[in-house]
């Protein structure tokens, strides 16, 4: 993985010193809250309902064991013994004291981590496919491009005060696991007919109160133009994006109001003027960055493993976990393993300090020192040998990390909601927990099959409900929590925005409503292998509405 060079080390260290001084001046009263708030937000410090919250950037979701151990240490020393992985592949601590934050940042800097640009109207942490570099279906590893974008966007003086926040995602495969069409810019690495590397480029996607799918602005952008084109998009957005109304300030609104044709012309003109300048990516620099992401020294292994097959036959729980949490790897005899952070009835995305320490050990022992964070609030071990699979599973079991539910109805994304978040209108986590408990039976879950439930506690949509096959949005109705259901959303390469199915449900009703939807799907699906989303797209909302509300 990428290692900081002297520039990275210097700017992170300088930033820690600067923020230490700012915190000191705030605590002594030299700075008031109005002056301090933008400074703390630029360093990832929010003030939530109960306490400060610190959001730590995990660039493109990649972590090494040293970093994971440091997160465990911080959880123990400065928080309540756990951390929370988010839908932006980041990690949040819910209880740090402001006075401790400079020390926490100094410790993070020791392991090449920081909280810069995890908040505020700037280019946020760049996300990528969590299977990057190992997925069997990949054209090229998206992480070198994500890293190049990270370097370009970090403290970019022109883009630190944008009209609104700006999110970039990169995927390297035609199957989109990074939800690129829901980002301000989405890059899909691809090859053109001549076999050259480049990108399909989407702009103007996003969730929030006005969900929109990204529109394709370029079918093929040459690799060397990545930064010049990104800069052109940002420059046009920075110039024309609205600053008078924060709800209309994202690039999606600009694209929508100006029209793709007009905005496209401006971006292309800006790009033409600068594409041969300093931002053109030199081939040797590209390869230098790519070298950081070189594959580990895999042993040559047969495609099949007798050890694995025997273990699957003798241990049904292991077999079930294997069927759900293991994905195809591009190297024979290896697999990608998802560690579910969705135990039945648990808090989606939470990991205790003990679990984090265990995951660091596991990554060293089984996955060439590498862990990924997925935007679905799970962790990924990208390089596991089939022969090691059972030993890995047993270790996960011992640490409460072997829930075999990846992609199933209990693998729910949920934002922190009203249990923590100052913006939320309703709770998300308890709804996720109750749905998880309702569908706890492993046989039933597997029979239902692939199903993404995503829950947001307010219209800002941090729980990605617009992209949920079943999306749940918490609202406040006269002081009571109420939940609206959307159906048919998807964050993959056939992205779609979920549609509101009808009137909302109370806290008491919502889990029954979800169960009704799932039962209706199981009853109506064409075959046992037709996934929920396909059934919904084939039949439309009719049967689901009828099941929920009766015929009109």
């Amino acid at each position, binding site marked *: 993985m990428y290692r900081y060079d002297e520039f990275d080390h210097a700017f992170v260290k300088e930033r820690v010193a600067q923020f230490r001084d700012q915190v000191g001046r*705030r*605590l*002594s*009263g030299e700075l*008031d*809250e109005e002056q301090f708030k933008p400074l703390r937000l630029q360093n990832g410090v929010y*003030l*939530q*309902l*109960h*306490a*400060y919250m610190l959001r730590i950037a995990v660039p493109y979701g990649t972590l090494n064991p040293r970093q994971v151990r440091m997160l465990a240490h911080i959880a123990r020393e400065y928080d*309540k*013994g*756990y951390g929370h992985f988010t839908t932006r592949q980041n990690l949040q601590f*819910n*209880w*740090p*004291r*402001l*006075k401790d934050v400079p020390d926490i940042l100094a410790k993070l800097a020791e392991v090449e981590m920081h909280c810069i640009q995890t908040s505020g109207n700037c280019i946020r942490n760049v996300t990528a496919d969590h299977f990057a570099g190992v997925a069997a279906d990949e054209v090229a590893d998206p992480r070198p491009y994500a890293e190049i974008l990270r370097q370009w966007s970090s403290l970019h003086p022109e883009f630190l005060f944008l009209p609104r926040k700006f999110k970039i995602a990169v995927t390297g495969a035609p199957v989109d696991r990074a939800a690129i069409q829901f980002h301000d810019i989405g890059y899909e690495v691809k090859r053109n007919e001549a076999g050259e590397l480049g990108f399909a480029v989407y702009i103007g996607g996003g969730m929030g109160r006005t969900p929109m799918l990204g529109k394709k602005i370029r079918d093929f952008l040459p690799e060397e133009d990545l930064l010049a084109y990104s800069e052109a998009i940002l420059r046009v957005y920075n110039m024309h994006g609205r600053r008078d109304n924060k709800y209309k300030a994202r690039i999606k609104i600009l694209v929508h109001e100006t029209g793709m044709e007009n905005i496209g012309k401006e971006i292309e003109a800006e790009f033409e003027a600068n594409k041969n300048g300093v931002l053109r990516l030199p081939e040797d620099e590209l390869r230098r960055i790519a070298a950081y992401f070189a594959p580990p020294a895999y042993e040559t292994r047969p495609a099949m493993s007798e050890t694995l097959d025997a273990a699957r036959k003798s241990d049904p729980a292991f077999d079930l976990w294997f069927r759900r949490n293991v994905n195809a790897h591009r190297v024979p005899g290896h697999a990608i393993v998802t560690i579910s952070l969705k135990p039945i009835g*648990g*808090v989606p995305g*939470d990991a*205790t300090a003990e679990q984090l320490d265990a995951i660091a050990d596991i990554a060293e022992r089984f996955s060439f020192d590498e862990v990924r964070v997925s935007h679905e609030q799970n962790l990924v071990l990208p390089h596991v040998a089939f022969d090691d699979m059972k030993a890995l599973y047993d270790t996960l079991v011992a640490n409460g990390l072997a829930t075999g539910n990846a992609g199933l109805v209990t693998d729910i994304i949920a934002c922190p909601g*009203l*249990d*923590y978040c100052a913006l939320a209108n309703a*709770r998300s*986590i*308890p709804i996720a*927990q109750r749905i998880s408990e309702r569908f706890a039976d492993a046989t039933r879950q597997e029979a239902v099959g692939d199903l993404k439930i995503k829950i947001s506690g307010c219209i800002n949509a941090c729980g990605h409900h617009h992209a949920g096959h079943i999306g749940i949005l918490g609202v406040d109705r006269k*002081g*009571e*929590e109420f939940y609206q259901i959307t159906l048919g959303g998807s964050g993959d390469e056939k992205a779609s925005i979920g549609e509101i199915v009808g009137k909302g449900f109370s806290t008491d009703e919502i889990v029954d409503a979800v169960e009704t939807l799932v039962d209706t799907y199981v009853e109506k699906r064409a075959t046992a292998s037709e996934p929920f989303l396909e059934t919904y797209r084939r039949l439309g909302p009719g049967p689901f509405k009828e099941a929920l509300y009766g015929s009109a």
Partner: protein
Amino acid sequence: MNVIIANDLANGLVVFRTRDGWTLDIDHAEISESKEAAEAALQRALEDAAANVVVDPSAIEVRRDGAHLVPVKLRERIRAQGPTTGNSKKDHAATCGEAA
């Protein structure tokens, strides 16, 4: 019936105004029975915010539940009592022992 709620500046924890300071326990909060009393209490809290003791003070409506005070709105109930679920819930009691 109102009390004043805020976050402690240095550690961020939820605190309530007493007659002469701040407490982590809502049951020890100063109660304002009238609009005028609530405004005066909020004024004192804003002075504490200006003196960098707390952040974002506001008056919230509460009701009595036996010997306890309970905020009327869910959001403020969760602020007063801690997260309703998960890892934080079981650990919240420990934090409440910490002096503001």
